[in-house]
């Protein structure tokens, strides 16, 4: 599979690319119609005990560490709710000590007052912990393997929870076991030289999960690292053309699986990708702890830099202009 994929990614001809895009667009339209689901992240904390070379929250990074108090995260929630957001992704770094399950549980309960879909992107945990969070209103899990290449995984995850490859790979299954409705997998493109290998391994992981837990709604993400001089950990450059191919092939192989695209990508690329394969996009995102209502204009230390800075209203307008129907509520927790 991965050698085939590599051939396709390296094929310079525009004609097969157009054909691929046409088919992906057709499949997306057939299975999702005009529906594009919107969500926004809330960064609850950036304390982290893992050292991952590519991450802004890495335990050794010299950033201002924050953790939102209940009044603060409630403020962030109310802010997004007022914008019309109903699906939220709660994020922390990987610190069990500063942001234990009880803290997540408490913030999930608060979120359930404002949102109909609540997902978490935190640290991997045990099935019983996921059960507690599910009972508190969390029904979605985002957990990226980042790379499926074991050697490379060991090189970029230096210490902390995240160092354990197998425990992390088995995490989606533990959440599914606990009853989670929605699970999002991902690889960080550019982290290892061979993107085709990582994408194929992600597809394999997804197939495995689909068989074991058919009731879960799966989605996938392909966050992309672009080479910058100071970032020596970037090993591959996935070009826009290759990136679009990955999205389109994923759509064709997995017609009903959601494909996420974050504000890491440019507005122009996101707008086009929505017509081709993408069905879930974040909008009006801020990736700093307290970035919506707490910090104001002071230094924010975001987890990653946002390229698409449009507001929720602008994204809604863009979708409507392009013939898509923005979907805010996709599930009902209460």
């Amino acid at each position, binding site marked *: 599979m991965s050698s085939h994929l590599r051939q396709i990614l390296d094929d310079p001809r525009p004609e097969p690319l157009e054909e691929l895009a046409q088919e992906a667009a057709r499949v997306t339209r057939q299975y999702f119609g005009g529906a594009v689901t919107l969500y926004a992240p809330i960064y609850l904390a950036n304390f982290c005990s893992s050292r991952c070379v590519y991450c802004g929250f890495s335990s050794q990074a010299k950033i201002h560490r924050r953790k939102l108090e209940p009044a603060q995260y409630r403020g962030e929630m109310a802010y997004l709710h007022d914008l019309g957001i109903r699906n939220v992704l709660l994020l922390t770094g990987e610190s069990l000590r500063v942001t234990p399950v009880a803290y997540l549980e408490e913030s999930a309960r608060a979120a359930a007052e404002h949102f109909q879909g609540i997902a978490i992107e935190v640290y991997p945990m045990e099935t019983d912990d996921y059960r507690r969070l599910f009972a508190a209103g969390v029904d979605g899990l985002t957990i990226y393997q980042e790379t499926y290449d074991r050697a490379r995984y060991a090189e970029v995850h230096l210490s902390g929870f995240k160092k354990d490859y197998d425990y992390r790979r088995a995490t989606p299954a533990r959440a599914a076991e606990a009853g989670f409705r929605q699970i999002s997998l991902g690889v960080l493109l550019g982290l290892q030289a061979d993107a085709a290998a990582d994408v194929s391994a992600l597809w394999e992981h997804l197939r495995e999960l689909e068989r074991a837990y058919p009731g879960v709604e799966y989605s996938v993400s392909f966050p992309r690292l672009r080479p910058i001089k100071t970032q020596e950990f970037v090993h591959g450059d996935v070009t826009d053309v290759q990136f679009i191919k990955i999205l389109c092939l994923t759509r064709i192989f997995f017609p*009903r699986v959601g494909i996420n695209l974050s504000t890491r990508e440019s507005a122009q690329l996101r707008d086009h990708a929505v017509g081709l394969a993408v069905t879930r996009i974040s909008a009006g995102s801020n990736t700093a702890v307290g970035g919506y209502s707490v910090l104001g204009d002071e230094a924010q230390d975001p987890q990653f830099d946002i390229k698409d800075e449009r507001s929720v209203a602008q994204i809604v307008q863009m979708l409507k202009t392009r013939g898509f129907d923005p979907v805010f509520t996709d599930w009902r927790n209460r």
Partner: protein
Amino acid sequence: MKNNDNNLLRIADREFTNRFFLGTGKFRSKKDLAAAIEASGTQIVTVALRRIDLDQHEDNILEYIPKGVTLMVNTSGARSADEAIRLARLAKAAGYNPWIKIEVINDSKYLLPDNAETIKATEVLVQEGFVVLPYVSPDLYVARALVKAGAAAVMPLGSLIGSNQGLKTREFIKILIDEIELPIVVDAGIGAPSQAAEAMELGADAVLVNTAVAAAQNPSLLAKAFAQAVAAGRNAFLSGLPSVRPLASASSPLTGFLFDNPVPKER
């Protein structure tokens, strides 16, 4: 005969003249949806509760559904009887009419309904006073259990949701049409008006379409075409359509010898 003696469709305490039902998901815009409802003259639309934002009225899907059209909330997203029941109760608490389409799906790849959980949810919700239209894979025993549970109609799938493959389950739907004394509404997989007409010619009482219309270049025109095909198929059924044979056949290949000229006797 159930509703066959005239052209009115009766479900629970309501009567309908239009046998084309429309699902409201996946449209490019709410305006397209409103136009499709109007052009088809549909009298029953189904809306996923999970897509209704109860505290946002601007651009709310319900604003686009005219009064006089029966709104049937569906439990899309439910993975078990318990979740379907919870959604139905939420809909009732929010003030929607008690018509509910039960959809219980615990397979995100094929989106096939879980018949056993659907029966359970039907039993509970009928007891609570809902008018229940369950969406199922066509199976005679399941349909009988739904009759016993007090369902108002049975909605068997024609083929996989969104597949546009038409009546792949034709023979099984025919059994339900012949044996079940409830309206049979063919739901899911109907991708073209010709397929809707086929279901109606077979004797289905109504057809529900969503994806094909929502994804069409011109949804309102296709919705109208579906409504026309459904009406045509219904008339064909009522006309006593001659049954169709799969192949041309010799008139009496097995018994003709009885009437042929005598075989010459052996010498």
